[in-house]
């Protein structure tokens, strides 16, 4: 096959579709879901056949992935009646999983991930400022209230996730919504390592109010700036966190 030269971008077009193997993708998807708390402790996973159908992979691939998760202690498989694979949240909680993922990132990579997240959040907020109905603004304000009143780290994290999702929904864009959800799984889990305490919570609430105020004012520039600043501050906090962790 001859690949015509279209410039450097063609290298990306004609590279493998995914750089990870299919079983690695399944492992990552399930690990992220456990790390996000979407799959709570003791939850039973669908059977191998169902998982293969859901992910669109072979049962062999599913079996490979489950065996990796088993060796990492993230699932437990019981045989016989009432058997199956069950989620096992690590004893030191899901932050342990996130920390393990964070170890794999260089500081520059974190910055890069933060840049993408800022782009998505900024674009969502700017569009939301143009397209929000009064009903949307009410909902954003209610979520901001819920974030302010949340006391436990878990509840704060849930409210924060919901806030981002409401902004993407107010932008009237299913694609931005999907990007937001994916980035929350990829980056949100890491960010929350450095968040949850009262000081960072107060900062979260302030920045969230700034985004809502700009959307209510129907000011796309201010909304974009506030949302980008919010992500930039979070990323900086995460990088500081990683720098402060003593690692061999």
């Amino acid at each position, binding site marked *: 096959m001859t690949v015509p030269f279209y410039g450097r971008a063609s290298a990306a077009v004609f590279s493998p579709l995914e750089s990870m193997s299919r079983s690695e993708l399944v492992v990552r998807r399930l690990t992220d879901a456990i790390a996000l708390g979407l799959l709570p402790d003791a939850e039973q996973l669908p059977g191998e056949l169902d998982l293969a159908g859901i992910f669109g992979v072979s049962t062999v691939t599913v079996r490979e992935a489950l065996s990796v998760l088993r060796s990492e202690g993230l699932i437990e498989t019981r045989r016989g009646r009432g058997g199956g694979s069950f989620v096992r949240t690590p004893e030191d909680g899901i932050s342990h999983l996130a920390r393990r993922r964070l170890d794999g990132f260089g500081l520059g990579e974190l910055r890069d991930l933060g840049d993408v997240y800022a782009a998505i959040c900024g674009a969502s907020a700017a569009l939301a400022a143009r397209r929000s109905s009064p009903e949307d603004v009410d909902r954003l304000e209610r979520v901001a209230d819920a974030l302010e009143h949340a006391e436990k780290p878990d509840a704060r994290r849930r409210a924060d996730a919901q806030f981002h999702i409401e902004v993407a929904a107010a932008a009237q864009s*299913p694609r931005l919504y999907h990007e937001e959800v994916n980035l929350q799984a990829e980056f949100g889990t890491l960010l929350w390592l450095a968040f949850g305490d009262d000081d960072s919570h107060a900062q979260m609430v302030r920045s969230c109010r700034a985004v809502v105020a700009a959307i209510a004012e129907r000011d796309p520039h201010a909304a974009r700036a506030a949302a980008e600043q919010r992500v930039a501050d979070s990323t900086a906090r995460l990088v500081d966190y990683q720098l402060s962790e003593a690692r061999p």
Partner: protein
Amino acid sequence: MNPSNTRPAVADTAPVIAAVATIAEQAFGVATAIAAAVEQALAGRPAPRRSDLAAVEPLLVPVLGDAAQPVQGAGFVAAPGVLQDAEWWLEWFARDADGRAQRLVTHSEPQAIGFYDYQHLPWYVVPRETGQRHVTGPYVDYLCTEEYTLTFTVPVVVDGRFCGVGGADVAVKNAERALLPSLRASEHRIAVVNGFGRILASNSGRHLCGDLLDGVAFDALPSEQRVGDLPLAVVALD
């Protein structure tokens, strides 16, 4: 440009309004049938359970299997506390890629991260508050379809008590497909908007689905521009 001041020609609007009304009739037909089945199932039952909702699924299987009609998901959403064995519950089914009805699995446990409190969502709130049917959207339905959607809901009332809503989803993409022939036939630029002036569909590249149209005073629109009693109307763009 101030759309609310310009009256579109009836020759342009009437076919569009008829097309919107057809979609709404089909969707409300499904939502109403679900509500009637649930009302019948819950009547005289002081402590209903999820298993009492078994009549919903067989009602929806033929509808969702029929690709010629626009409804792609439908069901019953229980008011919190109505069912004994689930505080929050969606008895909801959606058409899968093969045209079969699949039960929607949502997080009904308030502590789960994927859980969303539907008590504040307009497709639930408006029928509860007004006792009337309602069209929500276009909006990003992050609870069920994760698509750009219109949701048609009617209240479910048993012995004078609000018990939830019967509803039907129509993807904006499908609604648009049904509306485009009449929009294209129009001699003028027109748009279908909701009660907030949000565009559902138009025949102009400058006014796209999801945008808010400034200057639409919905309540002041004459009846010949409105789709019956629904929060949908046709307005002029030029």
